[in-house]
């Protein structure tokens, strides 16, 4: 583990919803251009953990972070109140559990991220729309109907559109919150392929309910239980020789 490859590092992260502590003293390295999966039973805090990375919790009241998430190479603590959450979200993108395209055209969905960054030139936006749709393996499906509503797409296509939307602004890290849980198996396969392809360009953190998905695509896996990261390591090791009893029980389907 060389620091050069480190994209982010979580140090002693605690998180509270009001007075309830949801994340307890978590530590985790995130390696650059790798896929890191967070697995664990429902309610263990995986999504809460993920949403710390783009300060989503700042949108709601009475939430409190403690500890740090250091983003490299600039070495800033992205959960510090001194850092503007807008800046963090401009650098770290997110794809949600349920596809949530805007009720606008396919084109406008992708253009939005550029427009809010002050990019107005049509030629640039056109170019980015085409490029990101290609990156999201959606270009061939939609090239003839870029200006038709995004809601006419199937669920899997909508999710790929959301991935394209997140990619359009060149994020350094892309967060996936159970991106395939609302999607059929064939579309899921396509999105998994896409994620493996995307890691050439971007660091990926994915929360998944499906341990097989983690085994298929993740380079590193962290197992979370009751708000704590119990075990972290290369995916192969976690799935073959877990060192903690709870990890082993979860992996083998004894609980979850």
């Amino acid at each position, binding site marked *: 583990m060389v620091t050069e490859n480190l994209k982010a590092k979580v140090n002693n992260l605690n998180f509270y919803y009001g007075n309830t502590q949801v994340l307890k003293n978590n530590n985790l390295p995130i390696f650059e251009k790798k896929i890191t999966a967070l697995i664990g039973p429902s309610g263990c805090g995986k999504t809460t953990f993920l949403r710390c990375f783009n300060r989503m919790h700042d949108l709601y009241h009475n939430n409190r972070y403690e500890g740090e998430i250091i983003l490299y190479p600039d070495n800033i603590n992205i959960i510090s109140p001194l850092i503007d959450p807008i800046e963090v979200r401009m650098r770290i993108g997110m794809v949600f559990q349920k596809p*949530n395209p805007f009720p606008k055209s396919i084109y406008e969905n992708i253009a939005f991220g550029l427009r809010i960054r002050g990019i107005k030139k049509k030629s640039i936006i056109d170019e980015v729309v085409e490029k990101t749709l290609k990156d999201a393996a959606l270009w061939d499906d939609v090239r003839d109907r870029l200006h038709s509503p995004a809601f006419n797409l199937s669920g899997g296509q909508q999710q790929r559109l959301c991935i394209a939307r*997140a990619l359009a602004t060149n994020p350094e890290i892309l967060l996936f919150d159970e991106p395939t849980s609302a999607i059929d198996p064939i579309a899921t396969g396509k999105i998994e392929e896409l994620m493996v392809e995307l890691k050439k360009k971007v660091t990926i953190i994915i929360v998944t309910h499906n341990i097989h998905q983690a085994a298929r695509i993740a380079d590193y896996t962290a197992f979370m239980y009751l708000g704590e990261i119990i075990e972290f390591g290369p995916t192969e090791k976690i799935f073959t020789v877990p060192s903690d009893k709870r990890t082993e029980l979860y992996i083998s389907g004894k609980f979850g």
Partner: protein
Amino acid sequence: MEDIKKRIKIIKFWDYLFGIVGLLSTFVGVLLLVILFIDLFIDGAARLNYKFITSFPSRFPKEAGILSALVGTTLVMFVTAFVAVPLGVMAGIYLEEYAKKNWLTNIIEINIANLAGVPSIIYGLLALGLFVYFFKFGESIITGGLALALLILPIVITATRESIRAIPNSIREASYALGATKWQTVKNHIIPYSLGGTLTGIIIGLSRAIGETAPVITVGALTFITFLPSSPIVKRFPFISFKWLFDPFTVMPIQVFNWVSRPQKEFHINAAAAGVILLIMTLLMNAIAIYIRYRFRRKIKW
């Protein structure tokens, strides 16, 4: 076996009976409106013509028309919309998207709910004290418009809030996750997606205001007026004049009220005819509201 069949028969009878009673109850509402409209129409039919719309009120029922009332209502509604829409929409957006949930917000919310229930004459009294006596706007179009704007403000706020609340949170999160600020999210998503519901609420509010009589009488609208307010467009620079805002006026419901209270039978015909026109105006506004709602619902689904 026979027992069960008998039992089912009795239960089914009640089923049937409720269906009939329910249907009749529903028809009371529909029939009332239809009968009301037909009755008014029959009474007023004799006067429903172009001349009626383009004539001023007169001592002679046959020559009297609703021109000044129609123009007055239009101008007052213009002032009402101009004031109530931006205020109501901005307050609604603020309460939904910006306000923190604390005791102060709660008090404001309760107050707005209560405002919607305040009798309209109270708004008239408020406008009389505030706009006529304090600001010295006189018994004018602007005073009437402002009084009605206050009256429908809670309706506009509530409609705006409800249509904003219908936007799923996942859409907000998608926008924020891309790095949008609050205003960028509101401008590009919240306002456009809630526009259908907001517009519907605005029109419902205006169609309520158009029929209000009490507050307009309270602020001193005239009942007999044979001239139009000054023109908003003038020949000299800057070509636009706001003098009309301070002119005396009358509105449709007052004109109806005035004619009904006359002893001569012929004026009652005028009242019915003007009632028909007022009713058509209201129904038309409601129809537009329904159409807008339909259009937006079809365009946006979550």
